[in-house]
């Protein structure tokens, strides 16, 4: 139940209570006059009915007015409260706005600071990178030069050993050729000698007649005898 409804019920209760009190007051006044012997005017039933109707009407009108008044008060109160609330809201909004503005400003400051920091760090990083790059390039150059020197040295060594090996091979080949030449010459000598011997044998063999052959055999037998073969 809302606050306005409660007020309406309270107003209606108060109205009924006022009417009852008025009726009680009228009744008590008539009784007192009767007791004092005063002449009282007698009212007809219609009068009472009209009076009740008037009272009822009046009561209703009053109730409506009261209700209207209560409603107006209520509305006014509501308006006031709303106004207050709005004011509060405005104040809050203003404060919020201020806070937001402050926050935004802080944020902006932070952003700027961050940007600056990023820029600074980027710059530093870039400088560092540049420095590092220079160092790396120098190192690469140093390593490259060292590698080239090493390669030159190795190449020279290999070339020297290769040269030695070639010299040795040439020397070996020369020795082999010399040996081969010597061997071949010996073979040729032997061959020539063999040919000469063969030709000599053939010539001598053909030149010897049977009687000479027979004499040679007999000489051989004599020699064998002398040498103790028999």
């Amino acid at each position, binding site marked *: 139940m809302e606050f306005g409804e409660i007020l309406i019920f309270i107003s209606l209760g108060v109205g009924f209570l006022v009417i009852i009190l008025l009726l009680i007051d009228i009744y008590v006044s008539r009784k007192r006059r009767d007791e004092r012997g005063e002449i009282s005017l007698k009212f007809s039933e219609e009068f009472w009915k009209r009076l009740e109707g008037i009272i009822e009407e009046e009561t209703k009108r009053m109730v409506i007015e009261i209700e209207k008044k209560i409603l107006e008060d209520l509305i006014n109160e509501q308006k006031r409260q709303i106004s207050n609330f709005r004011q509060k809201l405005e104040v809050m909004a203003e404060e919020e706005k201020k806070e937001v503005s402050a926050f935004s400003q802080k944020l902006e400051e932070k952003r700027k600071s961050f940007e600056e920091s990023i820029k600074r760090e980027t710059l530093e990083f870039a400088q560092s990178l540049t420095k590092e790059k220079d160092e790396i390039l120098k190192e690469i150059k140093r390593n490259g030069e060292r590698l080239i020197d090493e390669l030159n040295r190795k190449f020279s060594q290999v070339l020297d050993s290769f040269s030695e090996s070639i010299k040795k091979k040439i020397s070996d080949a020369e020795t082999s050729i010399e040996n081969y030449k010597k061997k071949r010459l010996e073979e040729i000598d032997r061959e020539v*000698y063999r040919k*000469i*011997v063969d030709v*000599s*044998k053939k010539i*001598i*063999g053909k030149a*010897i007649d*049977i009687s*000479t*052959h*027979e004499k*040679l*055999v*007999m*000489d*051989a*037998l004599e*020699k*064998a*005898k002398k*040498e103790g*073969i*028999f």
Partner: protein
Amino acid sequence: MEEIFEKLVEKIITEEDLVFFLDQLSILRRFLFLQTQIPLSERLKNKIDEKLRKEIEKLEKGRILPSSPEEQSSFFKELENFLLKIPKVKLEIAFEPSEEFISEVKEWFKEKIKKRVILDISVNPKIVGGARIEFEGKWKDFSLEKEIEKLYGRI
């Protein structure tokens, strides 16, 4: 007995002669125990070399050859053993020798060495002249081939 054998094998000079003679003996032995009533020389007609058959006939007539087949067999066995015991001389020469020359060699051994030998002669013209001689395990080169090689070897 050796004198008889010597006379029988007088014509055997070379290794070929020996092989032929031994072969004739082996044929002869096949007829020793056949038709024993007939003389061996008769039985051997046209079976062995006629010269040998005639020699056997002489032996029969001179009663040198025993009459029984068994004794004849022993006789020829002894003859074979006698032949096989004759020492051999191997001669490698450069020419084909004539029979006269072979006989001359045989006589040389008989006179100079006082030995009956069998000549095993082979011909090898490569030795040019002279001879290579082998006797009872001893060998010697007396060839002209050797002399020529010696000569060129010095050169």
